[in-house]
C-alpha cells in the first residue's frame, strides 16, 4: 500500500503540471482521500506548480490539437489511478510526454530521464506517520517519570513504617522516663502528643521533656532519602545507613565543664573539624580506646585525661563494646554551639551561644536495607542515653580538673577576643563618629542662635575633657615605663 501511495505521489507531479488550468483539484482531492497525511505535503507542491504551469498551459493551448490530446492523456491517467496498476502508468506516461511537450524538449527529456533514474523515495516526516514508534524518546521519558513516582510512593511508605516501628519499640521506655513525649510546638500548653513530628519524607523529630537534670531531649530519625530515585541510585554506588540523632540539652547546674567525645575514628575526625567546641578544646588527635577496653574501631577525643577516666566506667564500657557497630559518635560538651559557622571576619563580634549538651549519633543496622525489626536493636542504645544523662549529672571534676577547665575556657575566650579586637575597635570608632555626627546635626538644626552657641560650647568642653584624659593616660604610661 505504501508503494502505491508513493507512486501516486510521484505521478501526481507531472500530472498537475498540465492539469492546472482544468480545475483538476477536485480530482486531486478525491485521490487525497486515500491518505490525507501523505498528500498534505503535495498540496503545496501542486499549488506551486499552479503558478509555474500557467506558462506551459498558455503555450500548449496554442495548439488545440495538443489540448485535446492533453485531455485524452488525462483520461488515460485517470484510468490508471482507478485501476491502481503501477506498470501501466509508467509505460503510458512516455507517449504522453512525447506528444504533448513538443516545444519543450528539455523538459520531456528531464521527465524521461526521471523515469529511468531510480525514484528517490522521500521519507515521510516522522510526526506525520501513524505510528507510536517514532515517539520512543517521549515514551522513555514518561516511563522514567512513572518510575520516579512509583519509587517516591514506595520510599515514603517504607520510611514511614520504619519511623513508626522505631517509635513503637521505644515508646514505653520514653514514657517511663519523660513526662512529655512528643510535641510539635503548636499547642499553647505542654501536652504530650505521643506522635512523631514529620519534618520531611525522610526526617522525623520527637521532643521529650520532663526529667530531672535535662531540659529536654530532641530525637531526630534521619533516614535515607528513599523517596528520591536519584538518591537511591547514588546509594547503590556508595552505601550509607539511616541515622538516629539524639540531642539532650542539660540544665546549667546539672553538668560540669568538660568536653568529651567517643566514636568511630572517621566520625571523630570529621567532628573535630566541623564542631566549634571540639576543635577548640580537644586539640589532640583521636586516641585509641583500647586502653580502656574499647574495640579498635572506637576512638576518644577529650579535653583532659581526667574526663576520660571519669567517663569510662564499667557500664559505659560495656555499652560501648557491645554496641560498637551501631555507634557513630557520642559527644558530651558544656560549650556546645553546633558546627563552626562560616562567617566573614567582620561579622564575628561575639562568641556563639553555648549550651550544655549530650549528643548521640547512632547508625541503624542494615546499612540501608533496614526492616522495621531492626529498630528493636536500637532499644538498648536508648537505655545508654538515659544512663549517660544520669552519669553526666553525677560526674564532677575535682579541683585540679576544674582549674584546668577554667583555664582552657579563658584561653579560648582570649583568643577569640584577640581575633576580633580589630573589628571591635573599628565598631567602637564608627559608633563614636556616629555620635559626633548626630550632635553636629542637632546643633545645626537648632534654630535659636543662643541655644546653638550653648550646645557648641558644651561640645567643645567635652572634647577638651577627652583630650585632657588622654594626655593624663599618656603621662601615666610614660611614668610607668620609666
Amino acid at each position, binding site marked *: 500500500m505504501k508503494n502505491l501511495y508513493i507512486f501516486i505521489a510521484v505521478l501526481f507531479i507531472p500530472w498537475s503540471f498540465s492539469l492546472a488550468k482544468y480545475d483538476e483539484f477536485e480530482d486531486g482531492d478525491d485521490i487525497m482521500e486515500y491518505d490525507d497525511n501523505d498528500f498534505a505535503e503535495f498540496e503545496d507542491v501542486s499549488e506551486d506548480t499552479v503558478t509555474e504551469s500557467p506558462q506551459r498551459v498558455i503555450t500548449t493551448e496554442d495548439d488545440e490539437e495538443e489540448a485535446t490530446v492533453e485531455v485524452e492523456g488525462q483520461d488515460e491517467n485517470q484510468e490508471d489511478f482507478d485501476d491502481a496498476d503501477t506498470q501501466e502508468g509508467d509505460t503510458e506516461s512516455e507517449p504522453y510526454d512525447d506528444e504533448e511537450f513538443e516545444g519543450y524538449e528539455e523538459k520531456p527529456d528531464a521527465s524521461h530521464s526521471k523515469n529511468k533514474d531510480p525514484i528517490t523515495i522521500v521519507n515521510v516526516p*516522522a510526526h506525520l506517520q501513524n505510528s507510536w514508534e517514532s*515517539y520512543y524518546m517521549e515514551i522513555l*521519558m514518561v516511563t522514567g517519570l512513572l518510575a*520516579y513516582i512509583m519509587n517516591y510512593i514506595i520510599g515514603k511508605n517504607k520510611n514511614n513504617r520504619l519511623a513508626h516501628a522505631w517509635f513503637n519499640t521505644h515508646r514505653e521506655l520514653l514514657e517511663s522516663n519523660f513526662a*512529655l513525649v512528643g510535641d510539635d*510546638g503548636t499547642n499553647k500548653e505542654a501536652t504530650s502528643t505521643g506522635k512523631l513530628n514529620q519534618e520531611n*519524607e525522610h526526617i522525623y523529630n520527637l*521532643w521529650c521533656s520532663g526529667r530531672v537534670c535535662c531540659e529536654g531531649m530532641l530525637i531526630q530519625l534521619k533516614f535515607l532519602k528513599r523517596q528520591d*530515585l536519584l538518591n537511591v541510585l547514588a546509594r547503590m554506588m556508595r552505601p550509607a545507613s539511616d541515622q538516629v540523632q539524639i540531642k539532650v540539652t542539660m540544665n546549667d547546674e546539672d553538668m560540669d565543664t568538660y568536653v568529651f567525645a567517643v566514636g568511630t575514628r572517621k566520625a571523630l575526625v570529621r567532628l573535630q573539624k566541623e564542631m566549634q567546641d571540639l576543635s577548640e578544646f580537644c586539640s589532640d588527635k583521636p586516641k585509641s580506646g583500647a586502653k580502656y577496653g574499647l574495640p579498635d574501631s572506637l576512638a576518644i577525643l577529650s579535653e583532659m585525661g581526667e574526663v576520660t577516666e571519669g567517663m569510662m566506667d564499667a557500664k559505659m564500657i560495656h555499652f560501648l563494646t557491645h554496641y560498637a557497630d551501631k555507634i557513630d559518635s557520642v559527644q558530651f560538651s558544656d560549650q556546645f554551639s553546633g558546627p563552626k559557622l562560616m562567617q566573614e571576619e567582620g561579622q564575628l563580634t561575639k562568641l556563639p551561644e553555648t549550651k550544655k549538651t549530650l549528643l548521640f549519633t547512632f547508625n541503624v543496622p542494615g546499612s540501608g536495607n533496614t526492616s522495621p525489626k531492626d529498630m528493636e536493636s536500637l532499644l538498648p542504645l536508648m537505655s545508654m542515653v538515659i544512663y549517660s544523662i544520669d552519669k553526666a549529672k553525677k560526674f564532677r571534676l575535682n579541683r585540679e580538673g576544674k582549674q584546668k577547665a577554667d583555664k582552657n575556657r579563658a584561653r579560648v575566650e582570649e583568643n577569640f577576643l584577640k581575633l576580633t579586637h580589630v573589628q571591635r575597635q573599628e565598631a567602637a570608632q564608627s559608633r563614636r563618629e556616629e555620635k559626633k555626627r548626630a550632635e553636629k546635626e542637632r546643633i545645626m538644626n537648632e534654630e535659636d542662635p543662643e541655644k546653638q552657641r550653648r550646645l557648641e560650647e558644651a561640645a567643645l568642653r567635652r572634647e577638651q575633657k577627652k583630650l585632657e584624659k588622654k594626655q593624663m593616660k599618656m603621662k601615666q604610661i610614660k611614668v610607668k615605663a620609666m
Partner: protein
Amino acid sequence: PLPPTRYKPPATETNPALEDPTPDYMNLLGMVFSMCGLMLKLKWCAWIAVYCSFISFANSRSSEDTKQMMSSFMLSISAVVMSYLQNPQPMSPPW
C-alpha cells in the same frame, strides 16, 4: 523520677539553610530549564525541567510552600506542552 515538665521545643532547626539545599537548587534549575525550553524550543530542556521539579518536590520539607512547588511544576509542564505544540516532531536522540 518524673519532675517538672519543661516547655516546648524551640523552632527545631535554627538554620534550615545549613542543611540540604537540594529542593531549592532543583526548583531553580527546573525554572531555568523550562524557560530555556520555552524560549529556545528545545524539547529535552522541557523534559529535564519536569524531572527537576519532581525531584524538588520529593526532597522538599513539609514546612515549605506548596505554591512554589506547584508553580514550578506547572511551568515545566507548560514548557513541554508548548514545545510539542510548536513542533510536533518527536524528540531525536543526541547520538
